[in-house]
């Protein structure tokens, strides 16, 4: 052995490529490992013992496991924008240039000043936050939060945008197999042979699971060779998809499962065209859960000392990566299977000092194994205490009662640098728990097994409590074949592979907690249950003494199992300690429910490509490119992109909208209104439907006329507004606001399908089919006369609110004389394909008329000057009467919301009513400001209402706004103050009528 790297020998270091060294850094210092190993094994082989500091007490922590259950060896990986906190060193494949940093230490791993937290041990016990910061001391939290957050915690994420790409994909299969160990491979083999579509997913880089560290043979070859051959054979089959590095993290309804494939996490940066990770949504007819089991630690004083490691993890480092956990090793185990670790350690050339087993006697096989390993076999004993400076130096061993955990005497010391621990196994029932009933306790195995399936799954191998190799292969084969058959594939399936069993979990005793004699003292070593969240056995005892009985409460109070590892190594032990304290059996206490995800999932993987510009679909009008090419500042408006204003050189948006609005009132302006919702309504009951939808009368609307309509919600508040045009006896065109188009359509479809099934009406959304241009201003008619043909636009031919069919360049067009701006105005619609031509033609023809194109902001200015309501006023709270349109409401007919409009609260005094505001100090009035009576900004102040829409009015040459004000209509003329404390704004305003401009409407009637 050189350093801590096992010299080359058969069966040890099987996965490392000793000819390809890999350079990496840890806390800035250079290290070297080999290709094929993990960051954890490379550090271990380099003699590193301290991997990080703990969450709460900042205790030095070592490497505890070799898999996804790792509670201690958490790393911040990579630098800069790719920096990723809380990765598990055990799951990181080594690559050249890898930069890892330990976490939660300051200033360095060896010297951590925050370790002073250990002295405050009793203060930081269970319920610390609740006890310290609830009730009268609540304010203290505000003061101390900053310090506490800094002292306790894990790694920090980067603030830079993620440079990598993530993908999402969907897959459908007959049989999904989760886990590629002995059971999973056997199941995949059996299912695939029937021709069923099979997906086999495993979170590791290579298939094989525990087989990769196994000494046994399968079908006459080394277990790891069988795994590799089987995986390759499966991958070659057309009906099988093998997904390595893929964690199936969640089991959802109807057999849909979520999985994350780490496509490029094992290289420094994803190669071109490759995503970093790929999220899979897998819909499977049947699922085989071959998720294996995790080893269970034992709770004793100082059990978190670096150098203490799970026994199977020790084997993994020795056999797969040729890395030695230490030189002088002891094993502390409660079942037969763990003895393999002692055997392998001796075989690899380590000195195995002692095997400590709490069982009073063990079989001759084990006794002989201990003798062959040169280890002293100490049965009926337990490790009571582990100690060491930088890492483990000494363990104390004393006689134990294996049932209660009580020890006797002060014990006997053993000087070792490594302690391998195994307290049994915990089947990985996470997915089964998500998709089934509560896990069921098995007394013989002292473990929770999968409960009754609620979805179409079956468990195989260690997940189902079958730990022995042959049992894994047999159940895997059977469950795989059954799954294929259940999915409709009844082909012949191969026989289970033959193997001979090695030692496995047998005769296990469940030693929950080793209780040392004598006073420990609060500075003495702690007995940890949850290593990641620093929850000790005494925290659980304390919670019990304070009256906690339910496991879900215990979990939240002590935070047991609530860290990033979700208590993979701690839950069962914690529950058992609680059960003991309560004098109950484990199944009577129950277990907490597992929820997705099994391991943390990056938000990026869930978002996939739906980020930045792809966050939502972008909808562009037919004139979009013209807007952009002509200074249009584009704005997301509902689902659409619309021009906010058309900026000329040197102009700000404010300059632009003031110029645009002024020019509309002086001559003529055009605006793109293609985005307004347009619903075509046809059928014998079209008129009846329209009349039911709007709160004002529509029954007598003549053909060729449009009417402004107000739509209410069923509860009587305002919902949407727009114009509705009667095109024929049984034919209407309803327009809606841009934002509500989809909702209004869906709502009418619902009413017609569910409640008004007697109405014969057909609805079509034609928003996208028609391009629309609003033409407004004194010269609008002049302009249109040279644009449209086959239509009489005179006051007689097309009066105010008239709708006419017309012709543009040989194409059908619709023109309606409507005004949102208060000017003489029209809306013109043509087929979407002709929208750009219409627009460009208007711009050309309009040049001599000084035509202006205007955007959303000017559109807003014009409507605010006229006191017309829009989205900010129709906020889901206001009624028609609130916005001054109460008189429009029909009292003669029933309509949606009609029964509810007179409810007490909707007509009570003191409601917010629409008013206009004029700034007294010639300052802008910020939207969202509150209206108060105080001339000075001070708190508290009663809010009398709020500002909904603001603009500078070119027509009035001052700053104006619309607002919702308590009893507003009776307050015209009053002076109030618009206050916005966050920005320091506080300005005097005069309350006015909301119609600021052209009150008699003479301009729009022409």
């Amino acid at each position, binding site marked *: 052995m050189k350093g801590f790297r096992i010299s080359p020998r058969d069966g040890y270091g099987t996965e490392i490529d000793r000819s390809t060294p890999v350079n990496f850094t840890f806390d800035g210092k250079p290290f070297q490992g080999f290709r094929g190993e993990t960051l954890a094994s490379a550090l271990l082989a380099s003699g590193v013992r301290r991997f990080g500091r703990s969450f709460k007490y900042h205790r030095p922590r070592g490497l505890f496991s070799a898999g996804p259950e790792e509670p201690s060896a958490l790393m911040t990986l990579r630098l800069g924008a790719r920096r990723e906190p809380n990765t598990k060193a055990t799951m990181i494949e080594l690559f050249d240039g890898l930069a890892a940093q330990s976490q939660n230490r300051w200033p360095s791993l060896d010297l951590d000043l925050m370790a002073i937290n250990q002295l405050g041990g009793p203060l930081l016990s269970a319920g610390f936050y609740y006890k310290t910061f609830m009730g009268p001391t609540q304010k203290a939290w505000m003061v101390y939060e900053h310090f506490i957050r800094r002292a306790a915690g894990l790694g920090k994420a980067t603030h830079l945008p993620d440079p990598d790409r993530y993908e999402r994909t969907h897959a459908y299969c007959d049989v999904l197999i989760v886990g590629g160990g002995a059971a999973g491979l056997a199941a995949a083999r059996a299912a695939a042979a029937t021709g069923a579509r099979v997906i086999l997913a495993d979170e590791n880089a290579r298939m094989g699971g525990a087989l990769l560290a196994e000494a046994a043979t399968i079908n006459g070859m080394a277990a790891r060779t069988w795994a590799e051959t089987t995986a390759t054979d499966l991958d070659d089959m057309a009906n099988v998809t093998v997904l390595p590095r893929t964690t199936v993290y969640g089991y*959802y*309804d*109807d057999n*849909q499962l979520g999985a994350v494939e780490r496509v490029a996490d094992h290289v420094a940066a994803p190669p071109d065209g490759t995503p970093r990770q790929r999220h899979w949504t897998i*819909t499977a007819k049947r699922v085989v859960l071959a998720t294996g089991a995790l080893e269970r630690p034992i709770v004793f004083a100082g059990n978190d000392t670096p150098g203490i490691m799970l026994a199977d993890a020790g084997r993994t480092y020795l056999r797969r990566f040729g890395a030695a956990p230490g030189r002088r090793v002891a094993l502390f185990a409660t079942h037969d299977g763990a003895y393999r670790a002692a055997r392998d350690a001796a075989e690899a050339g380590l000195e195995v000092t002692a095997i400590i087993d709490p069982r009073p006697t063990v079989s001759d096989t084990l006794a002989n194994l201990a003798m062959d390993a040169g280890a002293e076999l100490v049965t009926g004993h337990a490790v009571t205490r582990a100690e060491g400076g930088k890492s483990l130096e000494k363990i104390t061993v004393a006689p134990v009662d294996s049932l209660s955990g009580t020890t006797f005497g002060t014990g006997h010391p053993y000087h070792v640098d490594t302690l391998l621990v195994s307290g049994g196994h915990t089947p990985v029932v996470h997915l089964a728990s998500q998709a089934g009933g509560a896990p069921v306790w098995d007394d013989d195995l002292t473990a929770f097994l999968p409960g009754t399936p*609620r979805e179409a799954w079956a468990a195989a191998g260690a997940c189902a409590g079958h730990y022995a190799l042959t049992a894994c292969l047999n159940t895997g084969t059977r469950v795989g074949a059954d799954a294929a058959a259940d999915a409709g594939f009844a082909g012949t399936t191969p026989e289970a592979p033959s193997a001979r069993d090695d030692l496995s979990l047998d005769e296990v005793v469940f030693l929950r907690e080793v209780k040392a004699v004598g006073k420990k003292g609060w500075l003495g070593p702690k007995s940890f249950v949850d290593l990641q969240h620093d929850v000790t056995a005494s925290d659980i005892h304390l919670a019990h003494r304070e009256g906690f009985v339910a496991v879900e409460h215990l979990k939240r109070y002590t935070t047991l199992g609530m860290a990033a590892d979700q208590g993979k190594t701690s839950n069962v032990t914690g529950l058992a300690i609680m059960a003991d304290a309560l004098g109950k059996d484990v199944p009577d206490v129950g277990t907490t429910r597992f929820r997705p995800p099994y391991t943390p999932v990056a938000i990026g993987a869930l978002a996939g490509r739906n980020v930045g510009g792809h966050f939502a679909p972008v909808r562009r009008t037919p004139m979009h490119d013209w807007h952009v090419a002509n200074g249009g500042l584009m704005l997301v408006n509902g689902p659409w992109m619309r021009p906010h204003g058309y900026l000329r050189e040197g102009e700000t948006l404010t300059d632009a909208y003031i110029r645009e609005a002024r020019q509309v009132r002086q001559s003529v302006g055009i605006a793109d209104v293609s985005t307004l919702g347009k619903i075509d309504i046809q059928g014998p009951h079209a008129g009846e439907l329209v009349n*039911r939808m709007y709160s004002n009368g529509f029954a007598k609307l003549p053909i060729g006329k449009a009417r402004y309509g107000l739509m209410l919600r*069923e*509860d009587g508040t305002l919902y949407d507004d727009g114009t509705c045009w009667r095109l024929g006896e049984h034919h209407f065109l309803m327009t809606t606001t841009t934002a509500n188009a989809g909702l209004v359509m*869906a709502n009418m*479809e*619902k*009413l*017609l*399908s*569910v*409640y*008004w*099934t007697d109405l*014969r009406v057909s609805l079509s959304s034609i928003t996208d089919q028609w391009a629309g241009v609003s033409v407004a201003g004194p010269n609008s008619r002049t302009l249109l006369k040279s644009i449209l043909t086959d239509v009489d636009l005179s006051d007689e031919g097309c009066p105010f609110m008239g709708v006419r069919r017309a012709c543009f360049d040989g194409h059908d067009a619709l023109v309606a004389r409507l005004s949102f701006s208060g000017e003489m105005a029209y809306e013109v619609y043509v087929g979407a394909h002709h929208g750009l031509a219409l627009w460009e033609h208007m711009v050309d023809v309009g040049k001599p008329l000084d035509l202006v194109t205007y955007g959303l902001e000017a559109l807003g200015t014009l409507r605010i000057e006229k006191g017309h309501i829009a989205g900010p006023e129709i906020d889901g709270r206001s009624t028609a009467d609130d916005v001054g349109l109460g008189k429009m409401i029909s009292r003669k007919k*029933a309509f949606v919301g*009609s*029964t*509810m409009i007179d*409810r007490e609260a909707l007509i009570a005094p003191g409601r917010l009513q629409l008013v206009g505001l004029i700034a007294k100090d010639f300052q802008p009035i910020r939207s969202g400001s509150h209206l108060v009576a105080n001339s000075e900004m001070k708190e508290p102040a009663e809010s009398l209402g709020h500002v909904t829409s603001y603009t500078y009015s070119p027509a009035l040459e001052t700053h104006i706004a619309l607002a919702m004000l308590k009893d507003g209509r009776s307050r015209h003329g009053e002076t109030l103050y618009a206050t916005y404390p966050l920005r320091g704004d506080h300005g005097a305003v005069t309350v006015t009528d909301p119609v600021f401009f052209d009150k008699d409407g003479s301009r729009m009637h022409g």
Partner: protein
Amino acid sequence: MRIRCPHCGERDLKEFTYGGDASVSRPDHASSDTKAFEAFIHHRTNPAGRHAELWHHTAGCRQWLVVVRDTVTHDIESVEMLGPWGEEAKPRRGWR
């Protein structure tokens, strides 16, 4: 969750929009019974178990469906189409 639309076949939940409790009925349109409308708008039993719900196949055929579902297990018992084509879409011989 997946819903078997009688018109489009089995589809992912993402294509549908929830439309509320299907067991409440809208009072007669001409009715001015405030209590009845209050019940229609606000009163829900919110059962743990069997529940008839309205779902809109928004990103599909746009039909409104009645989905009878168990709110505890999410098991779907039946899916029926509403509206003018509801009768025609009822499962019949030869229909998958």
